[in-house]
C-alpha cells in the first residue's frame, strides 16, 4: 500500500493576515517537523498509529498549538486536556478527557485503546490509569504559556460583557478549541 500522512494544527485563533513573518515561519517549521516525524516512521514500515502519535507529539510539545504545552486555560486558570485515537483496521479506539498532569494525552489515549477494556476515560480516573502504567506526569503549570494566559484574560472580559458569548461561534478570537 502507498503511505501518506496529513496533519492539522487547529483553527481560528490567529489567521495569516494578522501573523508576523517570523511567527508564520515558526508555524511552518513546526508543522514540517511534525509531518516529517510521522512520515519517517511510515517510510520505515511503522503503523499508522505510530505515525499519527509521532506527529501529534511534536505539536503537543510546542507552545504554538492548543495541545499539551501551550494548551488554552480553563476559566479557573488551569489546563484540562483531551485526546483520542482510532485505528481503521478494526475500529478500535481510545480517548481521554479532562486530564491535567499527563505530558502526552495522545499517548494515554492509545494506552486506553490497547491496555484497557474501555474506549474513554476521564479526569481523575484517567490519571490513575496512567499512573498504573507508569506514564510521565508533569505539573499542570508545565502546559502554561504567556500567549494563552493573555487569551484567557481577553475571554473573561468578553464574558463579562456578554454572558452568552461562550456559546457564540462568531467570537473566533477565543472560541476555538
Amino acid at each position, binding site marked *: 500500500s502507498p503511505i*501518506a*500522512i*496529513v496533519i492539522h494544527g487547529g483553527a481560528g485563533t490567529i489567521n495569516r493576515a494578522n501573523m508576523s513573518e517570523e511567527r508564520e515561519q515558526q508555524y511552518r517549521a513546526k508543522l514540517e517537523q511534525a509531518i516529517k516525524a510521522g512520515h519517517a516512521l511510515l517510510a520505515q514500515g511503522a503503523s499508522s498509529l505510530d505515525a499519527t502519535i509521532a506527529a501529534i507529539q511534536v505539536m503537543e510539545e510546542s507552545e504554538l498549538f492548543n495541545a499539551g504545552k501551550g494548551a488554552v486555560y480553563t476559566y479557573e486558570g488551569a489546563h484540562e486536556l483531551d485526546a483520542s485515537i482510532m485505528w481503521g483496521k478494526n475500529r478500535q479506539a481510545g480517548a481521554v478527557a479532562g486530564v491535567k498532569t499527563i505530558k502526552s494525552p495522545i499517548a494515554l489515549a492509545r494506552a486506553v485503546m490497547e491496555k484497557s477494556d474501555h474506549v474513554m476515560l476521564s479526569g481523575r480516573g484517567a490519571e490513575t490509569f496512567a499512573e498504573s502504567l507508569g506514564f510521565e506526569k508533569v505539573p499542570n503549570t508545565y502546559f502554561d504559556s504567556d500567549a494563552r494566559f493573555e487569551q*484567557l484574560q481577553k475571554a473573561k472580559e468578553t464574558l463579562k460583557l456578554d454572558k452568552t458569548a461562550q456559546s457564540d461561534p462568531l467570537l473566533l478570537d477565543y*472560541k476555538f478549541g
Partner: protein
Amino acid sequence: TVGAVALDKNGNLAAATSTGGMTAKRWGRIGDSPVIGAGTFADNQSCAVSATGHGEYFIRYNVAADICARVAYQKVTAAQAADEVIHNVLKPVGGTGGVIVMDNKGNISQPFNTQGMYRASIDTQGKLSVGIY
C-alpha cells in the same frame, strides 16, 4: 487542537486528535476531540478523519463518522463527503471549523469553512505541503 491521519504500508488508516479544548471552559466541559465519531474516526473501509473547530457542533452533527458513513453508504469520494459535511451541513447552521481526511488509497482532502487553519501533508507521491489559511 492538533490532529493527524495516516495510511501505512499495510493499508491501515489511523486518526488521532489532541487538544486543550476551548479557552475559559468551565464545569468540566468536553469538546469533540475525545469523542469518537465527532472529532476522530477511522475505518479502513471508508476513510479516516480528524477535526478542529467548534466542538459543540461537531458533536451534535457527528462530523467525523458522518463523513465516513457517506463514503461507505453513498459511494462518494472522501473529498466529496467531507466537502458536503463542512460546507453544506455545518456551515449553514453556524458550525465553524474543518477536517483532515484520508481515504484507503491515501487520497487527502482538507476542507474548512473558517480562517486560521494550519495544515501539512505528505501524499502518496512523497510531495510535502505546508499551509496556513
